[in-house]
């Protein structure tokens, strides 16, 4: 008997099967693109511990009312001006040289004695009404983070010749080229120059 060769399998429908699978995956999956503003919550305070007393001039008060309007240091303000106002406050460096409060030698602000002593002392306090919309709330948070980031960028540019936010993003993504531990130390140094002190008071009830 002659040896019959096995008939070739028709692969024409393979494409259809693959397309079906492809469409299934397209429908059931999402593209991972989550980004956000990160924040650390304060731990629960012990009832017996007295909160530290802060000087009024070292606290930058931002109040958002239920109509999404801003009151910054007792003055109404548009959200577009908040970033600059926060930067001016943080970068003020009002403490005198040789005084008992640490003098800020890298600050480039107005050195107004009625504003913050140094960035380490400066605290931004956000108070929002319960009925403030979340959109405004995030916009305020974003502007304040931007103020910190711009100051940090300026200092990292001056000291190490790179942008704080760019290097941090590269380190987080694991795409940083160069010495990672050194970059980490440099970032920490910049962070200490402008520590993020954002206080979120509990929303006021009506």
């Amino acid at each position, binding site marked *: 008997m002659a040896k019959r060769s096995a008939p070739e399998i028709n692969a*024409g429908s393979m494409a259809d099967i693959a397309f079906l699978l492809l469409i299934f995956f397209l429908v059931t*999956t999402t593209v991972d693109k989550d*980004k*956000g503003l990160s924040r*650390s919550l*304060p731990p629960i305070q012990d009832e017996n511990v007295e909160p530290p007393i802060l000087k009024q001039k070292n606290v930058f008060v931002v109040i958002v009312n239920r109509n999404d309007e801003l009151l910054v240091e007792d003055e109404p303000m548009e959200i577009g001006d908040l970033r600059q106002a926060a930067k001016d406050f943080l970068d003020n460096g009002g403490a005198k040289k040789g005084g008992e409060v640490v003098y800020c030698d890298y600050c480039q602000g107005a050195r107004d004695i009625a504003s913050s002593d140094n960035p380490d002392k400066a605290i931004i306090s956000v108070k929002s009404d319960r009925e403030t919309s979340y959109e405004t709330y995030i916009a305020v948070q*974003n502007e304040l983070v931007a103020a910190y980031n711009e100051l940090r960028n300026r200092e990292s540019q001056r000291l190490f010749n790179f942008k704080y936010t760019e290097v941090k993003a590269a380190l987080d993504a694991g795409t940083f080229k160069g010495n990672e531990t050194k970059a980490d130390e440099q970032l920490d140094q910049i962070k200490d120059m402008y520590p993020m002190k954002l206080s979120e008071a*509990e929303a006021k009830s009506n």
Partner: protein
Amino acid sequence: MSKFKKKSGGELPPISTASLPDIVFMLLFFFMVATVLRDNDIKVAQQLPSADQTEKLTKDRTVFIYAGKPSAQYAKLGTEGKIQIGDKFVGVKEVKAAILEERERLRVELQDKVIVALKVDKETNSGLVTDIKEELREANMLKIIYVTPQAVQQ
């Protein structure tokens, strides 16, 4: 009698589609790698506010809390902001228990480094967010991230 018979007709040979499955499989693998499975369906409105000072979030140590008004399917629940954890609605007082339960699903070594991602609709009152944060403080999960799509920078 010629040995070489002229081929009859000048028809083009059919285009071979044998490599088509390969192309489609390549697409398929790309999508499988670049995406994640949608693990729970979201029952609240999710129009997130955008921001431009964002950081990336690490998915493997994140638990999600969704909040917003119930979506069209659940419209009978009213238009008040609701909290969703996992795939069910929870009340403000149950957030702590639900989030601790949700944390159990993470890998053990990452459970201490957990980050809570808040996906909140932009029309929600911030009071609801404050309530959630208060519960998280009680659950001692202090690292949070407000999920916001990257806004286009001017």
